[in-house]
């Protein structure tokens, strides 16, 4: 680990000023950043420690039914907040399917949004990576890329965004509150992360020094509470990134889908909101055929970036499953194995 300056700002303004200097990085719980520093993947010259700033750790339930979450709220505290998880059950389920209990106890909401990709070539300073070293090339192309992107990738980068939490946030229209040198702005989470294109090193819309201060879930997101699920396919039951995942929400009226939400995880450099699928579901009957059609629409533009064509079909199936589970109704309590295919299914059997 290189030598770096450590700054402990007393206010958000001080933090922003310090972080606007080139080479700076914000430190929240450090569950990702410190690993990257220890591996010489990133070498910030200055850490701006957010852990002592006041006012970033509240969970506010808004009277209109929405919620505002401070950027430093811990993942576990949010997931286990009874009223929050009642209003936004798929968000809580996604949170609890991520990482490990130890990491969830430390990791923050803002840090989750800004975690870096799990691409092994990004983590390995000896490999070429355009994200780490723009213009260096991409060793993941033609390498071990079984779990890489199938949507929105470019020749320059095929990495995925690893967050579970962000998937339902994208589906349910979360808004990111940002403060910077030039004031405060809001960006829909769906637009917060950037696809790689020619500049995979740019991962979000944040300008230098800009700080995520809070996340808002709009009141309308709570309208899906009765039919909202997250499903995550993974290679072990805990502490594994998604192979593919999906968050789904349905508003049912008179036995018909009035409105649907669907987003995919593990497929792209950002949580992938599947608006075409949502449109296909509006007015449809909540049945397997509708869900399969929606899943086809969600992956219509998918293409393998390597040895990962299987992910496209699995993503369709996970999307259809999440919709089916959502239609069956949000369980009274979060399942003991959140987002797992092995969580009990309320109501009837899923499989013939």
């Amino acid at each position, binding site marked *: *680990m*290189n*030598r770096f300056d450590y700054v402990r700002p007393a206010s958000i303004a001080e933090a922003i000023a310090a972080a606007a200097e080139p080479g700076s990085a914000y430190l929240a719980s450090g569950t990702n950043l410190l690993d990257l520093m220890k591996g*010489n993947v990133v070498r910030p010259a200055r850490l701006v420690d957010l852990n002592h700033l006041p006012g970033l750790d509240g969970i506010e339930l808004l009277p209109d039914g929405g919620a505002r979450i401070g950027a430093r709220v811990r993942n576990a505290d949010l997931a286990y907040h009874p009223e929050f998880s009642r209003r936004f059950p798929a968000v809580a389920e996604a949170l609890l399917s991520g990482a*490990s209990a130890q990491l969830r106890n430390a990791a923050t909401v803002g840090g989750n949004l800004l975690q870096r990709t*799990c691409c*092994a*070539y990004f983590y*390995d300073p*000896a490999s070429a990576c355009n994200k780490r070293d723009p213009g260096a090339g991409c*060793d993941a192309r*033609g*390498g*071990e890329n079984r779990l890489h992107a199938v949507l929105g990738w470019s020749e320059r980068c095929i990495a995925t965004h690893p967050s579970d939490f962000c998937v339902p946030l994208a589906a349910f229209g979360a808004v990111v509150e940002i403060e910077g040198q030039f004031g405060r702005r809001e960006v829909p989470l769906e637009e917060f992360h950037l696809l790689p294109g020619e500049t995979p090193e740019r991962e979000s819309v944040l300008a230098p020094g800009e700080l995520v201060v809070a996340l808002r879930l709009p009141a309308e997101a709570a309208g899906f509470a009765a039919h909202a699920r997250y499903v995550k*396919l*993974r*290679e*072990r*039951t*805990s*502490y*594994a990134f998604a*192979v593919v995942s999906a968050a789904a929400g349905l508003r049912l009226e008179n036995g018909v889908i009035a409105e649907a939400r669907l987003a995919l995880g593990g497929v792209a450099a950002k949580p992938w909101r599947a608006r075409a699928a949502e449109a296909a579901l509006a007015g449809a009957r909540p049945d397997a055929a509708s869900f399969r059609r929606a899943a086809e629409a969600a992956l219509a533009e998918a293409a393998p970036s390597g040895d990962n064509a*299987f*992910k496209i*079909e*699995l993503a369709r*199936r*996970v999307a259809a*499953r999440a919709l089916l589970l959502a239609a069956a109704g949000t369980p009274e309590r979060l399942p003991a*194995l959140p987002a*797992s*295919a*092995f969580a*009990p*299914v309320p109501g009837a*059997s*899923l*499989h*013939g």
Partner: protein
Amino acid sequence: MAETASATHVRHGSSIGQPLTRRDGVLKVTGQARYAADNHPPGMLHAALAVSSIARGRVTALDIAAARAHPGVVEVMTPANRPPLALDPDAKTGPFVFRMEVLQDDRVRYAGQPIAVVIAETLEAATEGAALLAPRYAAEPVEAGLDAADVFVPEMVGPGAPAREGYGDVEAGLAAAARRVEAVYETPAQYHNAMEPHAVVAAWEGDRLTLDTPSQGLAWAQDRIAGLFGLPPENIHIRSPFLGGGFGSKGVISGPQVLGILAARLVGRPVKLVLRREQMYGPVGHRAPTRQRLRIGAGEDGGLTALDHQVRTATSRFDDFIEPAGSVSHTLYAAPAIAIGYDAVRLDTGTPLFMRAPGEASGSIALESAIDEMALACGMDPLEFRLRNYAEVEPISGKPFSSKALRDCYAQGAARFGWAGRPLQPRQMRDENGLLVGWGMGTATFPALMFHGQARAVLRRDGTGLAELGAQDMGQGAWTALAQLAADSMGLELDQLEFRAGDSRLPDAGIAGGSAHTATAGAALHNAGAEVIARLAELAMADRRSPLFGAGNAGVVARGGSLLRRDDESRGESYGEILARAGLEEIEGRGSGAMDPAVQEHYATHAHGAVFAEVKVDPELGQIRATRLVGAFAAGRIVNPRLVRSQYYGGMIWGVSFALHEQAVMDKRTGRVMNANLGEYHVPVNADVPSLEAILVDEVDPHVNPLGIKGVGEIGITGTAGAVANAVWHATGVRVRRFPIALEELALAGAE
């Protein structure tokens, strides 16, 4: 509990067979157990390795000036200034002496090879110094993967078994078979990944060296280091009271440990060197990948007509360790013709090494899968098929087994699991949520070995005793089980016994490996105890003042700190009384343990078991979960059932890992392991193993060794991995022959 045949004084006392908790448990859970890296001698410096990011070529430049300029850096060790060794580290002076990379030149022979050591006042400075070296290389093309060009037939495999074995005419057996199965199974490279990384704290005092380093074999380590540095072994003092796991990777001294010693030599101060997790994927061994081709023939009656097990594996370009994956086929099933053969490719990797159940683990998952396939081909239940082909004598040697309670294992495991009524065909069972359910089984086996070990037993006038030997507790519970054996051999209660182990100054207890440690060290302790008791009894029986005077013909019994007349146990006296009257403070006995060559000549010695697995699989998503495992194992005398069960659980979990999770992902373009961390190198988490049961099947082995002890450390992986794989097939109807089983192979089987 049976008396042993040879030592009349021994009645097994109150300790052997008791499910005692670990004597070192409180130390460990309170953080007081001192592992190697916990040592900080005065003046100690920290060393960090710089390792190669290429797998083959030469180091052409290191920015030594930049590293030296970093604050806190004391010295940079490279081939240019590395202190000399008395022995070429590439000299192959014995089959278990492995070549090591200790900065002898600028060659790189695998990714992750140490290429420099930075020594600094702090770990942080050493680590940053290593990063600042920014090596440049002349890289050469890399050989990776089992299809590499340089194929050879090894002279021997594993610890020295022949590379071609068998009997009978396999081709004729296959030709005559009514049913034939031919299939190829692949297992990946795996890494030991002990929780405790290899660590060394080295302190020189003149030509004497004190080392705190984890070692599964202190005397081997001592000899190896003595040879490398040209010193008498007694000049090397190794302390290794606890190991945070070894699994074979700490069986021989590794290059990085020697580099720590060299670094201390170079700077003239104590040095600590601890491998980073990713540095454990190169210089400290691994389980080599295998590709196993099995051809099996069976008659109409389900009896095997031939078994052909051909193994392709890999070793490094510069040394040989051949994963003996065919060895299970020596032992498990009766067949009129068996052939086992090997070839191997040379790759640009570190040399493979023994890794828990070497050979048996990789071979078992292939053989047990193939046997399952053959059972189906014969239309027989997999258990019935295995019983039909039960080996009454060891197939490869024709020798009788010293004991073999495998039928009991099958019966007890099947009953407990509820195997009866299992549908023969796959994809027949569902749970209440519609998930596919499958049941599979596998036979477990591991040889019962012994190495050479010695021990010392002392009885003291105050009524206490001391037993000591250089034994290794690597988490398996040797501190406890060996103390139990020692206490009984000395006729003491456990709390009267002081037990010392884990230090090279103590008698050489052999290596903690091959599931042989309890048998070897236990036999040494047993014999040391026998000797000290015999010497004490002589004192007493020759003394007219002793109530034991003249008891010679009847003999004496040692129990509870006293010697008692065998013909009248009301007559006796305490050890302390005997020693006091003789004017002695203490009396000692020494003993050794080793396999009796006559036993080896006449018997095949193996532990056995049967493992039954249930898995569930989501039919659309391919998500797999082992939901239930029952293992029934017969391994001779059980010294401590609690610890033994723990060993079986650990092995069974590793079996699940083998079938479903574990693999090193290598980029074949570069020869580099891309998941060299515990986040991405998957082993099961607790939630992956919901229900485990291990049944300890009674087995009395009158031959294997006087105590009747086999071994329990490695057998649990065998059988289990195949049982899980077979259960996945039974759930889905999809036979995946490449491990670990990938979910997409189940989900998308038969898809366009």
